[in-house]
């Protein structure tokens, strides 16, 4: 999570508090780590997946060295659950398979954004609606609305707060099916504004 997380606040005995300051942002990197670097973030889904569990726990320990009591079994079960259900994870795994098969092929993942007023709120997303694989290099200009994750890229790119995959990318465990979040132009349930009720009734069957 981008931003300065205040880790000094939970030293007492009181309930857990999550506090951070500064501007918050989420960014996404590339599919493959730079040479001789430990994989992190999205790279964990692609690179060296035979040792994925170890890589994952190591990535976490670096951030919070005191919390090293991770249960390997739970981590691998969660990974399995995401592999089976999360369409975003499936796309990343698919990219891994392709990269393994054709060594050095240049592919990108396009995480699809939403047009103003798209009716994507009301149904469970499928893999092909959430993201797709693109062969070769794509210029970013062409896909301003979407997030393009390419094999090798310097630095991290910022994710717009109105990208429907903002929350599911950051919290795959909270949104295990890749449920899409807010985007611009979601209409009210009815044009007559009944205050409090009537809003987005159809919504209920998702969450």
């Amino acid at each position, binding site marked *: *999570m981008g*931003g300065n997380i205040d880790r000094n*606040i939970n030293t*007492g*005995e*009181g*309930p*857990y*508090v*999550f*506090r*951070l300051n500064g*501007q*918050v*942002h989420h960014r996404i990197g590339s599919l493959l780590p730079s040479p001789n670097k430990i994989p992190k973030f999205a790279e964990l889904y692609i690179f060296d997946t035979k040792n994925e569990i170890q890589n994952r726990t190591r990535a976490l320990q670096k951030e919070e060295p005191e919390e090293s009591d991770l249960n390997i079994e739970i981590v691998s079960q969660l990974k399995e659950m995401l592999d089976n259900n999360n369409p975003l994870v499936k796309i990343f795994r698919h990219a891994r398979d392709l990269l393994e098969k054709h060594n050095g092929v240049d592919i990108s993942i396009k995480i699809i954004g939403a047009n103003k*007023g798209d009716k994507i709120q009301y149904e469970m997303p499928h893999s092909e609606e959430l993201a797709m694989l693109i062969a070769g290099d794509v210029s970013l200009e062409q896909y301003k609305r979407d997030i393009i994750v390419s094999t090798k890229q310097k630095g991290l790119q910022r994710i717009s*707060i109105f990208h429907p995959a*903002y*929350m599911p990318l*950051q*919290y795959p*465990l*909270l*949104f295990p099916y890749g*449920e899409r*979040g*807010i985007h*611009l*132009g*979601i*209409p*009210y349930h009815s*044009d007559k*504004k009944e205050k409090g009720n009537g*809003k*987005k009734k159809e*919504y*209920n069957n998702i*969450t």
Partner: protein
Amino acid sequence: MEKKRNTITLHEYYKYHMHFRPNQPDPYLCYGRLSKQAIVDARAIEDEDRLGYIARNQDKLRADYLQGVFDAVEKGLSQGNQIGKRVLLSSSHVSSRRYMVQNYHDGIAICRVYGPPDLFITFTCNPKWPEIISAILPGEQPNDRPDIIVRIFHIKLEQLLQDIRLGKIFGPTLALLYSIEFQKRGLSHVHILVWIDKNGNEITPEMIDKWISAEIPHPSEDPLGYILISEHMMHGPCGILNENCPCA
């Protein structure tokens, strides 16, 4: 007539999703600490959007444009390039500087009319309130459900303020001023200032004794008061004497 917005806002979206619904798992409520992080995240998204709007629409919002120039000159910036582009955060943005100054001025204006306040009341949320205990699901701790805590606190606070306003507690009042804060533990508490309608009289020691007691009630004369005071108001041994004391 201006066209009304017919799409939902970020605030409405997250409000809708964070609302508790029976028997429906909610990613913003059920996952303990991770949910809390997601809530903070959602709040940060909202702030980013609002601040972005203010920054993009300065020409529409900046009614006090000239004031900004004067401020800059006052600070000793006389060259145009030193001033740079000013982004003014209006007083309508909660907790911005202008917001705080405006509220402070309001408070001082009340003091100018009614004189110094008479009572300073602190009212703190208690996670053991029966309303909170009965609203959380089995297995949850009160601090897992900040939504319930703030909502019940708000209901109780409104009732308390109404009682004070209507004169049920301290007799007729002239004015009321309060500020809600969040403690580190996520429990909200409020500081209230009350101006009592004294009709030109002074407050007598008898009146103060009626409202304020700084002693431990006698266990047999006021058993409920004794229990409450000894549970909430007394600071027990802490440090090496009591390792479990939450104040450490």
